[in-house]
């Protein structure tokens, strides 16, 4: 699951190489789309060339739709992606200053860099201006400090600000973008000839197909729930009560023991130790995976356990010293919609009591009760098995769910 670098799937030493490669394509696309020409860029403000609007809007819609779908399919953890915070007043004033700067200079920083790379002198002068501007800002920062942090809304999303659902917002955004493309195409046809600027002919058929495609995607996106987990049901209070009163979530000590004895590291048994790391290191069940209860809310740990449980399909058992912590873990996963986890009944305490400490009972003599005889034999062999194992439990392979350090993602310019 992405983002790959913050998740530690790709080492952070590659982050700069990634930046370099992304930058290459960023620069190539900007230059190739004509963004290295200041006259073309400001055309959007006079109506003779709308390349800025087309590229900018299409890119934003593509990326926004892409993130929605990638989030839905679980390819990217959107909670880790950087969302630039809104400081309303500095954003408005800063934006207004940039707007004037755009019309005077004919560039924005990104486009000026691509234009400078192909030798545009006005772009180089513009970049020199940015440097002076940053310096001026830095030197005057002390008295602007309070304004700089005014109107703090945090990393708020635009649909939250508007009080509508994400799906509806995305849908409206696409509609607005398509309408803007249509209106500006007509404007450009009328205005461009006035300034002796050629208009590239429209390709109506292709355009229609593209528009239909984008609309369909937008309509689908409109129905994608914001949180992947919301796809599953959230339990109501009654359901929680019912689930906790029902014994169905428990798995019997004997059953777990049976599976362990017949195939430790078995493909069909997943044992998850939700106790603390110290307790886990001291003693645990053979083949258990450690994931402390406090870490279970971490997306990395959840993902690790779910991936592991996909390989081990049959019996997925949470255990703690008693039922309580394992129950909490079970509840957490149940609420996320994962139904097939169970709790080791009585926990490790009962397990140890049952197989290690309980005295060997008298052999049932009543031959008419085969079940009692079977139980007796099983318990004895299990006791032998686990007591033999106790000495080497440290050498048995246990896994630990990786707990990442807090992920910090920065962004912005």
């Amino acid at each position, binding site marked *: 699951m992405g983002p790959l670098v913050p998740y530690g799937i790709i080492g952070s030493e590659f982050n700069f190489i990634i*930046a370099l490669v992304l930058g290459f394509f*960023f620069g190539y696309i900007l230059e190739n789309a004509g963004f290295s020409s200041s*006259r073309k860029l400001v055309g959007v403000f006079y109506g003779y060339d709308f390349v800025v609007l087309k590229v*900018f809007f299409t890119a934003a819609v593509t990326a926004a739709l892409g993130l929605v779908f990638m989030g839905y399919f679980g390819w990217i953890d959107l909670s880790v*992606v950087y969302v630039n915070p809104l400081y309303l007043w500095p*954003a408005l004033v800063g934006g207004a200053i*940039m707007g004037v700067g755009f019309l005077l200079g004919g560039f*924005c920083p990104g486009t000026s860099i691509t234009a400078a790379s192909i030798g545009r002198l006005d772009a180089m002068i513009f970049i020199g201006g940015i*440097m002076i501007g940053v310096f001026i800002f830095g030197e005057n920062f002390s008295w602007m400090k309070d304004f700089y942090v005014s109107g703090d809304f945090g990393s708020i999303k635009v649909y939250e600000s508007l009080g509508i659902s994400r799906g509806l917002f995305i849908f409206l955004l696409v509609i607005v973008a398509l309408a803007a493309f249509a209106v500006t195409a007509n404007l450009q046809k009328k205005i461009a000839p006035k300034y002796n600027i050629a208009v590239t002919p429209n390709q109506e058929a292709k355009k229609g197909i593209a528009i239909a495609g984008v609309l369909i995607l937008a309509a689908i996106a409109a129905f994608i729930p914001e949180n992947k987990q919301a796809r599953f049901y959230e339990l109501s209070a009654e359901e929680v009560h019912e689930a906790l009163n029902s014994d169905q979530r428990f798995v019997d000590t004997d059953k777990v023991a049976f599976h362990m004895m017949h195939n430790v590291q078995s493909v069909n048994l997943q044992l998850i130790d939700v106790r603390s790391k110290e307790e886990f290191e001291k003693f645990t069940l053979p083949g258990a995976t450690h994931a402390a209860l406090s870490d279970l809310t971490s997306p990395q740990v959840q993902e690790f356990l779910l991936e592991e449980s996909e390989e081990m399909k049959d019996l997925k058992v949470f255990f703690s010293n008693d039922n309580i912590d394992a129950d909490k873990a079970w509840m957490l996963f149940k609420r996320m919609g994962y139904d097939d986890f169970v709790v080791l009944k009585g926990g490790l305490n009962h397990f140890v009591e049952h197989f290690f400490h309980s005295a060997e009972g008298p052999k049932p003599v009543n031959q008419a009760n085969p079940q009692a005889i079977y139980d007796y034999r099983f318990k004895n062999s299990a006791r032998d098995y686990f007591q033999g194992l106790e000495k080497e439990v440290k050498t048995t392979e246990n896994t630990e769910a990786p707990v990442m350090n807090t*992920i910090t993602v920065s962004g912005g310019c």
Partner: protein
Amino acid sequence: MNPYLAGFLLGLVLLGAFYLSGRGLGSSGAVKSIVVSVVNAVNPEHAASNGFFSKYLGGDGPLKTWLVFLTVGVIIGGFFSGTVSNRLKFKLERGPHASARARIIAALAGGILFGVGAQLGRGCTSGAALSGMSVLSSAGFVTMIAIFGTGFLVAYFMRKLWL
């Protein structure tokens, strides 16, 4: 390149940035890094005592940042595109009725304003507006509307530069 295709591809690059590094693109950050480095080289005490510059002095230094590497890539990518499209040329681009002098002054002034504005607005057209809109942040939309809204308001007064 067809602008819609360019926009689509740029959207994919943005998605790549989010998927790989968990962040969007940005351009003014690299310029800021250079300014901070220069200030730090000329007068380290001043840089360290300044509440703004000192923010960027930690870590491996202001030049070893993601955005600086991105911008190096932008320069190479832009140069490569310019080469294959035969657009490499030293040229001062200006409106048909603008003098070279006016264009130079306006470009410098525009750059200065963008430098100030991008710091105040926590990012420029790419870092704050485009990347922000992709993650549907309010900051992205507010910045975009402020930049382009103001642009339309003042366009009339700047027409001699461009038309």
